[in-house]
Protein backbone atom coordinates (compact mmCIF):
# COMPACT_ATOMS: atom_id res chain seq x y z
CA UNK A 1 0.00 0.00 0.00
CA UNK A 2 1.44 3.41 -0.98
CA UNK A 3 0.50 6.69 0.65
CA UNK A 4 1.47 10.29 -0.25
CA UNK A 5 0.72 12.72 2.59
CA UNK A 6 0.78 16.43 1.63
CA UNK A 7 4.06 16.04 -0.36
CA UNK A 8 5.61 19.29 -1.62
CA UNK A 9 8.49 19.59 -4.09
CA UNK A 10 9.84 22.55 -6.09
CA UNK A 11 12.77 22.92 -8.50
CA UNK A 12 14.20 26.37 -7.74
CA UNK A 13 11.25 28.77 -7.96
CA UNK A 14 9.01 26.39 -9.94
CA UNK A 15 6.62 24.59 -7.56
CA UNK A 16 5.92 21.13 -9.00
CA UNK A 17 4.15 19.25 -6.17
CA UNK A 18 1.88 21.44 -3.99
CA UNK A 19 0.67 19.11 -1.22
CA UNK A 20 0.07 15.87 -3.18
CA UNK A 21 -1.98 13.44 -1.07
CA UNK A 22 -3.14 10.11 -2.44
CA UNK A 23 -3.49 6.47 -1.32
CA UNK A 24 -3.00 3.44 -3.54
CA UNK A 25 -4.12 -0.01 -2.30
CA UNK A 26 -2.07 -3.16 -2.90
CA UNK A 27 -2.76 -5.11 -6.10
CA UNK A 28 -4.66 -2.20 -7.69
CA UNK A 29 -4.05 -0.71 -11.19
CA UNK A 30 -3.98 3.01 -10.43
CA UNK A 31 -3.77 5.63 -13.20
CA UNK A 32 -2.54 9.22 -12.67
CA UNK A 33 -3.75 11.60 -15.37
CA UNK A 34 -3.17 15.27 -16.00
CA UNK A 35 -1.64 17.79 -18.36
CA UNK A 36 2.07 17.61 -19.06
CA UNK A 37 4.26 19.45 -16.59
CA UNK A 38 1.94 19.05 -13.60
CA UNK A 39 4.32 16.82 -11.60
CA UNK A 40 3.03 13.33 -12.46
CA UNK A 41 6.44 11.84 -13.37
CA UNK A 42 8.05 13.70 -10.46
CA UNK A 43 5.70 11.86 -8.13
CA UNK A 44 6.88 8.45 -9.37
CA UNK A 45 10.56 9.41 -9.08
CA UNK A 46 10.05 10.14 -5.39
CA UNK A 47 8.99 6.53 -4.80
CA UNK A 48 12.34 5.12 -5.97
CA UNK A 49 14.53 7.76 -4.36
CA UNK A 50 15.55 9.59 -7.55
CA UNK A 51 14.07 12.73 -5.97
CA UNK A 52 13.65 13.80 -2.36
CA UNK A 53 10.51 15.75 -1.31
CA UNK A 54 10.85 19.22 0.30
CA UNK A 55 8.17 18.32 2.85
CA UNK A 56 5.38 15.79 3.54
CA UNK A 57 5.52 12.02 3.99
CA UNK A 58 5.66 9.11 1.56
CA UNK A 59 4.75 5.66 2.85
CA UNK A 60 5.60 2.43 0.98
CA UNK A 61 3.81 -0.34 2.94
CA UNK A 62 5.16 0.48 6.42
CA UNK A 63 8.38 2.43 5.63
CA UNK A 64 8.37 6.21 5.57
CA UNK A 65 10.88 6.86 2.79
CA UNK A 66 10.94 10.66 2.45
CA UNK A 67 14.24 10.91 4.37
CA UNK A 68 15.76 7.55 3.33
CA UNK A 69 19.50 7.30 2.50
CA UNK A 70 20.77 5.76 -0.73
CA UNK A 71 21.51 2.44 1.05
CA UNK A 72 18.01 2.24 2.54
CA UNK A 73 16.59 2.74 -0.95
CA UNK A 74 18.32 -0.49 -1.95
CA UNK A 75 15.45 -2.74 -0.86
CA UNK A 76 12.79 -0.16 -1.76
CA UNK A 77 14.08 -0.37 -5.34
CA UNK A 78 13.81 -4.15 -5.19
CA UNK A 79 10.16 -3.73 -4.18
CA UNK A 80 9.27 -0.94 -6.70
CA UNK A 81 10.25 -1.33 -10.37
CA UNK A 82 10.14 1.86 -12.48
CA UNK A 83 9.59 1.70 -16.25
CA UNK A 84 10.86 4.93 -17.80
CA UNK A 85 9.26 6.96 -20.58
CA UNK A 86 12.26 6.30 -22.84
CA UNK A 87 13.26 2.61 -23.21
CA UNK A 88 16.63 3.47 -21.53
CA UNK A 89 18.31 0.27 -22.70
CA UNK A 90 22.13 0.13 -22.72
CA UNK A 91 22.87 0.05 -26.46
CA UNK A 92 26.44 -1.23 -26.06
CA UNK A 93 25.31 -4.44 -24.23
CA UNK A 94 23.42 -7.36 -25.74
CA UNK A 95 19.81 -8.10 -24.83
CA UNK A 96 20.80 -10.74 -22.25
CA UNK A 97 22.93 -8.26 -20.31
CA UNK A 98 20.20 -5.63 -20.53
CA UNK A 99 17.57 -8.03 -19.22
CA UNK A 100 19.70 -9.35 -16.35
CA UNK A 101 20.76 -5.91 -15.06
CA UNK A 102 18.32 -6.32 -12.16
CA UNK A 103 19.16 -9.96 -11.41
CA UNK A 104 22.95 -10.11 -11.72
CA UNK A 105 23.36 -12.08 -8.46
CA UNK A 106 20.93 -14.79 -9.65
CA UNK A 107 22.69 -18.00 -10.80
CA UNK A 108 22.75 -18.46 -14.57
CA UNK A 109 20.52 -21.56 -14.57
CA UNK A 110 17.76 -19.81 -12.66
CA UNK A 111 18.06 -16.79 -14.96
CA UNK A 112 17.41 -19.10 -17.93
CA UNK A 113 14.10 -20.08 -16.33
CA UNK A 114 12.99 -16.59 -15.29
CA UNK A 115 13.86 -14.72 -18.49
CA UNK A 116 11.55 -16.66 -20.87
CA UNK A 117 8.70 -16.18 -18.39
CA UNK A 118 9.26 -12.40 -18.28
CA UNK A 119 9.52 -12.26 -22.09
CA UNK A 120 6.31 -14.27 -22.23
CA UNK A 121 4.59 -11.62 -20.09
CA UNK A 122 5.49 -8.92 -22.59
CA UNK A 123 4.74 -11.05 -25.63
CA UNK A 124 8.33 -11.24 -26.87
CA UNK A 125 9.16 -14.87 -26.10
CA UNK A 126 10.23 -15.55 -29.70
CA UNK A 127 13.43 -13.48 -29.38
CA UNK A 128 14.65 -15.52 -26.37
CA UNK A 129 17.10 -17.67 -28.41
CA UNK A 130 18.73 -14.55 -29.86
CA UNK A 131 19.17 -12.51 -26.66
CA UNK A 132 22.93 -13.21 -26.56
CA UNK A 133 23.75 -11.86 -30.00
CA UNK A 134 21.16 -9.10 -30.60
CA UNK A 135 21.55 -5.51 -29.42
CA UNK A 136 18.82 -2.97 -28.47
CA UNK A 137 19.20 -0.82 -31.63
CA UNK A 138 18.07 -3.83 -33.70
CA UNK A 139 14.61 -3.72 -32.07
CA UNK A 140 11.75 -1.38 -33.04
CA UNK A 141 10.79 1.41 -30.58
CA UNK A 142 7.71 -0.52 -29.43
CA UNK A 143 9.77 -3.70 -28.90
CA UNK A 144 12.41 -1.74 -26.96
CA UNK A 145 9.73 -0.42 -24.61
CA UNK A 146 8.36 -3.91 -24.03
CA UNK A 147 11.87 -5.26 -23.41
CA UNK A 148 12.43 -2.46 -20.86
CA UNK A 149 9.18 -3.60 -19.18
CA UNK A 150 10.44 -7.21 -19.12
CA UNK A 151 13.72 -5.99 -17.62
CA UNK A 152 11.84 -4.24 -14.80
CA UNK A 153 9.69 -7.34 -14.24
CA UNK A 154 12.61 -9.74 -13.83
CA UNK A 155 13.58 -8.82 -10.22
CA UNK A 156 9.89 -9.57 -9.49
CA UNK A 157 9.03 -6.24 -7.76
CA UNK A 158 5.75 -6.05 -5.83
CA UNK A 159 4.94 -2.58 -7.16
CA UNK A 160 5.27 -1.51 -10.81
CA UNK A 161 5.57 2.16 -11.74
CA UNK A 162 5.00 3.27 -15.37
CA UNK A 163 6.16 6.75 -16.49
CA UNK A 164 4.00 7.64 -19.54
CA UNK A 165 4.41 4.16 -21.15
CA UNK A 166 2.57 5.08 -24.35
CA UNK A 167 4.15 8.40 -25.39
CA UNK A 168 5.75 8.16 -28.80
CA UNK A 169 3.89 4.94 -29.64
CA UNK A 170 1.22 4.66 -32.32
CA UNK A 171 -2.26 3.44 -31.38
CA UNK A 172 -1.68 -0.27 -32.01
CA UNK A 173 1.40 -0.43 -29.72
CA UNK A 174 -0.24 1.79 -27.11
CA UNK A 175 -3.20 -0.58 -26.84
CA UNK A 176 -0.81 -3.52 -26.61
CA UNK A 177 1.10 -1.90 -23.72
CA UNK A 178 -2.10 -1.21 -21.82
CA UNK A 179 -3.22 -4.84 -22.19
CA UNK A 180 0.18 -5.92 -20.88
CA UNK A 181 -0.15 -3.62 -17.87
CA UNK A 182 -3.56 -5.09 -17.04
CA UNK A 183 -2.57 -8.75 -17.57
CA UNK A 184 0.71 -8.43 -15.60
CA UNK A 185 -1.06 -6.75 -12.70
CA UNK A 186 -3.85 -9.29 -12.58
CA UNK A 187 -1.84 -12.53 -13.16
CA UNK A 188 1.16 -11.62 -11.03
CA UNK A 189 -0.88 -9.65 -8.44
CA UNK A 190 1.21 -6.48 -8.66
CA UNK A 191 0.23 -2.97 -7.62
CA UNK A 192 0.65 -0.77 -10.70
CA UNK A 193 0.80 3.02 -10.79
CA UNK A 194 0.63 4.37 -14.34
CA UNK A 195 1.30 8.02 -15.21
CA UNK A 196 -0.31 8.81 -18.57
CA UNK A 197 -2.39 11.27 -20.59
CA UNK A 198 -3.98 8.65 -22.86
CA UNK A 199 -7.53 8.95 -21.50
CA UNK A 200 -9.17 6.34 -23.71
CA UNK A 201 -6.89 3.44 -22.67
CA UNK A 202 -6.74 4.62 -19.06
CA UNK A 203 -10.47 4.24 -18.52
CA UNK A 204 -10.39 0.78 -20.11
CA UNK A 205 -7.51 -0.49 -17.95
CA UNK A 206 -7.58 1.22 -14.55
CA UNK A 207 -9.21 0.06 -11.32
CA UNK A 208 -9.02 3.63 -10.02
CA UNK A 209 -7.94 6.97 -11.55
CA UNK A 210 -6.64 10.25 -10.15
CA UNK A 211 -6.65 13.52 -12.09
CA UNK A 212 -3.75 15.82 -11.18
CA UNK A 213 -3.49 19.54 -11.84
CA UNK A 214 -0.83 22.00 -10.59
CA UNK A 215 0.79 19.40 -8.35
CA UNK A 216 -2.39 18.37 -6.50
CA UNK A 217 -4.95 15.61 -6.87
CA UNK A 218 -8.24 17.28 -7.87
CA UNK A 219 -10.32 14.20 -8.72
CA UNK A 220 -10.22 10.52 -7.69
CA UNK A 221 -12.38 7.48 -8.32
CA UNK A 222 -13.22 4.37 -10.32
CA UNK A 223 -13.62 4.76 -14.11
CA UNK A 224 -17.41 5.04 -13.72
CA UNK A 225 -17.10 7.72 -11.03
CA UNK A 226 -14.63 9.62 -13.21
CA UNK A 227 -16.96 9.39 -16.23
CA UNK A 228 -19.76 10.89 -14.16
CA UNK A 229 -17.47 13.35 -12.37
CA UNK A 230 -18.53 17.00 -12.00
CA UNK A 231 -14.95 18.33 -11.81
CA UNK A 232 -14.45 20.73 -14.72
CA UNK A 233 -10.95 19.54 -15.69
CA UNK A 234 -12.03 15.88 -15.72
CA UNK A 235 -14.99 16.74 -17.95
CA UNK A 236 -12.73 18.50 -20.46
CA UNK A 237 -10.42 15.46 -20.40
CA UNK A 238 -13.38 13.26 -21.26
CA UNK A 239 -14.69 15.47 -24.07
CA UNK A 240 -13.10 13.34 -26.81
CA UNK A 241 -14.74 10.16 -25.59
CA UNK A 242 -18.23 11.67 -25.62
CA UNK A 243 -18.34 12.06 -29.45
Amino acid at each position, binding site marked *: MIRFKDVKKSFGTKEVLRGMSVEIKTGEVFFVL*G*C*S*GTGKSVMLKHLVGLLEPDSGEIWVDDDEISRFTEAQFENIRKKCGLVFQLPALVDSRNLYENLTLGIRQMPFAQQQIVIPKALQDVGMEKIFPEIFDRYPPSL*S*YGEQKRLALARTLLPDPEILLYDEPT*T*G*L*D*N*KNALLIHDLIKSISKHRNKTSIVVS*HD*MRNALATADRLAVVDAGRVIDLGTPDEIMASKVE*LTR*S*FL*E*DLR*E
Partner: protein
Amino acid sequence: MFNVDLDWKGPGIKVLMGESGVGKSTLLKSLGGVWKPQSGKLIFGEERLWLRGRFNQNPKLLARMGFCFQNNALFNSMTCLENLCFPHRQRFAEVAEGKRLNLAMEWLEKVGLGHTRDLLPHELSGGMQKRLSLARTLILQPDYLFFDDPTAGLDPITSRQIAKLLISLLDNHPALSVIVTNDQDRAKEWSHEIYELENGGLHLKSSEANS
Protein backbone atom coordinates in the same frame (compact mmCIF):
# COMPACT_ATOMS: atom_id res chain seq x y z
CA MET B 1 10.63 3.46 -50.26
CA PHE B 2 7.17 3.69 -51.79
CA ASN B 3 5.59 5.00 -54.93
CA VAL B 4 2.59 7.22 -54.44
CA ASP B 5 0.45 9.04 -56.94
CA LEU B 6 -2.28 11.32 -55.79
CA ASP B 7 -4.42 14.02 -57.34
CA TRP B 8 -5.92 16.47 -54.84
CA LYS B 9 -8.15 19.33 -55.98
CA GLY B 10 -9.05 22.75 -54.67
CA PRO B 11 -8.92 24.26 -51.21
CA GLY B 12 -9.74 21.89 -48.34
CA ILE B 13 -8.08 19.79 -45.66
CA LYS B 14 -6.67 16.33 -46.40
CA VAL B 15 -5.64 14.17 -43.43
CA LEU B 16 -2.85 11.62 -43.83
CA MET B 17 -2.72 8.81 -41.27
CA GLY B 18 -0.69 5.64 -40.79
CA GLU B 19 1.46 3.80 -38.29
CA SER B 20 4.58 5.55 -36.99
CA GLY B 21 7.60 4.70 -39.10
CA VAL B 22 5.67 4.02 -42.30
CA GLY B 23 6.90 7.31 -43.78
CA LYS B 24 4.06 9.81 -43.37
CA SER B 25 6.50 12.62 -42.51
CA THR B 26 8.77 11.71 -45.40
CA LEU B 27 5.87 11.90 -47.85
CA LEU B 28 4.75 15.23 -46.37
CA LYS B 29 8.29 16.63 -46.56
CA SER B 30 8.56 15.58 -50.22
CA LEU B 31 5.25 17.34 -50.95
CA GLY B 32 6.33 20.40 -48.99
CA GLY B 33 9.57 20.80 -50.90
CA VAL B 34 11.83 19.96 -47.95
CA TRP B 35 13.21 16.79 -49.53
CA LYS B 36 13.65 16.06 -53.24
CA PRO B 37 11.97 12.75 -54.23
CA GLN B 38 14.23 10.32 -56.13
CA SER B 39 11.87 10.04 -59.07
CA GLY B 40 8.50 11.25 -60.24
CA LYS B 41 6.96 14.69 -60.60
CA LEU B 42 5.32 17.09 -58.18
CA ILE B 43 3.00 19.52 -59.93
CA PHE B 44 1.07 22.25 -58.14
CA GLY B 45 -1.52 23.90 -60.37
CA GLU B 46 0.56 23.97 -63.52
CA GLU B 47 3.99 24.59 -62.02
CA ARG B 48 6.59 21.93 -61.22
CA LEU B 49 8.10 22.03 -57.70
CA TRP B 50 11.54 20.68 -58.59
CA LEU B 51 13.07 22.27 -61.67
CA ARG B 52 15.17 20.02 -63.90
CA GLY B 53 18.90 20.25 -63.18
CA ARG B 54 18.52 22.98 -60.62
CA PHE B 55 19.27 21.63 -57.10
CA ASN B 56 16.79 23.82 -55.28
CA GLN B 57 13.04 24.23 -55.53
CA ASN B 58 11.06 26.45 -57.83
CA PRO B 59 11.19 29.76 -55.89
CA LYS B 60 7.86 31.09 -57.19
CA LEU B 61 6.03 27.98 -56.03
CA LEU B 62 7.98 27.77 -52.75
CA ALA B 63 6.81 31.31 -51.94
CA ARG B 64 3.21 30.04 -52.00
CA MET B 65 3.81 27.12 -49.63
CA GLY B 66 3.91 26.91 -45.81
CA PHE B 67 5.27 24.06 -43.68
CA CYS B 68 4.64 23.53 -39.96
CA PHE B 69 7.23 21.13 -38.53
CA GLN B 70 6.60 18.49 -35.85
CA ASN B 71 9.23 19.90 -33.45
CA ASN B 72 8.06 23.44 -34.39
CA ALA B 73 11.51 24.47 -35.76
CA LEU B 74 11.21 27.87 -34.06
CA PHE B 75 14.29 30.11 -34.50
CA ASN B 76 15.71 29.77 -30.99
CA SER B 77 17.83 32.92 -31.12
CA MET B 78 14.87 35.20 -32.01
CA THR B 79 12.01 36.51 -29.84
CA CYS B 80 8.45 35.33 -30.59
CA LEU B 81 7.66 38.57 -32.44
CA GLU B 82 10.84 38.33 -34.51
CA ASN B 83 10.01 34.65 -35.29
CA LEU B 84 6.96 36.01 -37.18
CA CYS B 85 8.60 39.09 -38.70
CA PHE B 86 11.74 37.34 -39.97
CA PRO B 87 9.99 34.92 -42.41
CA HIS B 88 7.58 37.67 -43.49
CA ARG B 89 10.52 39.97 -44.21
CA GLN B 90 12.12 37.28 -46.41
CA ARG B 91 8.97 36.61 -48.41
CA PHE B 92 7.46 40.13 -48.58
CA ALA B 93 10.47 42.45 -48.46
CA GLU B 94 8.46 45.26 -50.04
CA VAL B 95 6.09 45.55 -47.05
CA ALA B 96 6.93 48.44 -44.68
CA GLU B 97 8.47 47.40 -41.35
CA GLY B 98 5.76 49.14 -39.28
CA LYS B 99 2.98 47.37 -41.16
CA ARG B 100 4.82 44.06 -40.70
CA LEU B 101 5.08 44.60 -36.91
CA ASN B 102 1.35 45.26 -36.64
CA LEU B 103 0.57 42.17 -38.72
CA ALA B 104 2.85 40.05 -36.52
CA MET B 105 1.23 41.40 -33.32
CA GLU B 106 -2.19 40.73 -34.82
CA TRP B 107 -1.24 37.11 -35.52
CA LEU B 108 0.22 36.71 -32.00
CA GLU B 109 -3.14 37.89 -30.60
CA LYS B 110 -4.99 35.57 -32.98
CA VAL B 111 -3.21 32.49 -31.57
CA GLY B 112 -3.48 33.76 -27.99
CA LEU B 113 0.21 34.66 -27.51
CA GLY B 114 -0.19 38.44 -27.26
CA HIS B 115 1.76 38.51 -23.98
CA THR B 116 4.80 36.57 -25.26
CA ARG B 117 6.06 39.29 -27.61
CA ASP B 118 9.64 39.47 -26.26
CA LEU B 119 10.03 35.92 -24.89
CA LEU B 120 12.39 33.39 -26.48
CA PRO B 121 10.88 30.14 -27.82
CA HIS B 122 12.48 27.91 -25.18
CA GLU B 123 10.68 29.97 -22.50
CA LEU B 124 7.27 28.85 -23.83
CA SER B 125 5.35 25.68 -22.93
CA GLY B 126 4.82 22.93 -25.54
CA GLY B 127 1.34 24.13 -26.43
CA MET B 128 2.43 27.78 -26.77
CA GLN B 129 5.36 26.80 -29.00
CA LYS B 130 2.97 24.93 -31.27
CA ARG B 131 0.68 28.00 -31.47
CA LEU B 132 3.66 30.17 -32.44
CA SER B 133 4.64 27.63 -35.10
CA LEU B 134 1.09 27.72 -36.54
CA ALA B 135 1.11 31.54 -36.54
CA ARG B 136 4.52 31.59 -38.26
CA THR B 137 3.26 29.25 -41.00
CA LEU B 138 0.00 31.09 -41.66
CA ILE B 139 1.28 34.69 -41.48
CA LEU B 140 2.77 34.12 -44.96
CA GLN B 141 -0.75 33.45 -46.34
CA PRO B 142 0.41 30.41 -48.37
CA ASP B 143 -1.85 28.60 -50.88
CA TYR B 144 -0.49 25.16 -49.92
CA LEU B 145 -0.17 24.23 -46.24
CA PHE B 146 1.54 21.21 -44.67
CA PHE B 147 1.26 20.26 -40.96
CA ASP B 148 3.51 17.49 -39.62
CA ASP B 149 1.63 15.87 -36.68
CA PRO B 150 0.59 19.17 -35.01
CA THR B 151 -0.84 17.49 -31.88
CA ALA B 152 2.05 15.11 -31.22
CA GLY B 153 3.42 15.05 -27.69
CA LEU B 154 0.64 17.22 -26.26
CA ASP B 155 -1.80 16.18 -23.53
CA PRO B 156 -5.47 15.78 -24.59
CA ILE B 157 -6.66 19.22 -23.45
CA THR B 158 -3.86 21.20 -25.14
CA SER B 159 -4.04 19.08 -28.27
CA ARG B 160 -7.79 19.72 -28.54
CA GLN B 161 -7.21 23.47 -28.11
CA ILE B 162 -4.58 23.34 -30.89
CA ALA B 163 -6.94 21.34 -33.15
CA LYS B 164 -9.76 23.89 -32.63
CA LEU B 165 -7.33 26.75 -33.25
CA LEU B 166 -6.12 25.07 -36.46
CA ILE B 167 -9.70 24.65 -37.74
CA SER B 168 -10.61 28.29 -37.02
CA LEU B 169 -7.39 29.54 -38.67
CA LEU B 170 -7.94 27.41 -41.77
CA ASP B 171 -11.65 28.31 -42.04
CA ASN B 172 -11.05 31.92 -42.99
CA HIS B 173 -8.03 31.08 -45.14
CA PRO B 174 -8.87 29.06 -48.28
CA ALA B 175 -5.86 26.82 -49.02
CA LEU B 176 -5.05 23.20 -49.78
CA SER B 177 -3.82 21.82 -46.43
CA VAL B 178 -2.36 18.39 -45.72
CA ILE B 179 -2.25 17.30 -42.07
CA VAL B 180 -0.28 14.25 -40.95
CA THR B 181 -1.38 12.64 -37.68
CA ASN B 182 -2.00 9.30 -35.97
CA ASP B 183 -4.57 10.72 -33.53
CA GLN B 184 -8.03 9.32 -34.41
CA ASP B 185 -9.97 11.82 -32.29
CA ARG B 186 -8.42 14.86 -34.01
CA ALA B 187 -8.49 13.42 -37.53
CA LYS B 188 -12.30 13.29 -37.60
CA GLU B 189 -12.50 16.90 -36.37
CA TRP B 190 -10.27 18.21 -39.15
CA SER B 191 -11.61 16.74 -42.31
CA HIS B 192 -13.76 14.03 -43.83
CA GLU B 193 -11.08 13.18 -46.43
CA ILE B 194 -8.78 10.82 -44.48
CA TYR B 195 -6.09 8.88 -46.30
CA GLU B 196 -4.33 5.81 -44.83
CA LEU B 197 -0.67 5.28 -45.74
CA GLU B 198 0.46 1.65 -45.51
CA ASN B 199 3.92 0.50 -46.58
CA GLY B 200 3.79 0.73 -50.33
CA GLY B 201 0.60 2.58 -51.00
CA LEU B 202 -1.83 5.32 -50.15
CA HIS B 203 -5.58 4.75 -50.20
CA LEU B 204 -8.66 6.68 -49.19
CA LYS B 205 -9.83 5.38 -45.82
CA SER B 206 -13.04 7.29 -45.24
CA SER B 207 -14.53 10.17 -47.15
CA GLU B 208 -18.11 10.39 -45.81
CA ALA B 209 -18.81 13.61 -43.82
CA ASN B 210 -17.48 13.24 -40.26
CA SER B 211 -20.13 11.77 -37.97
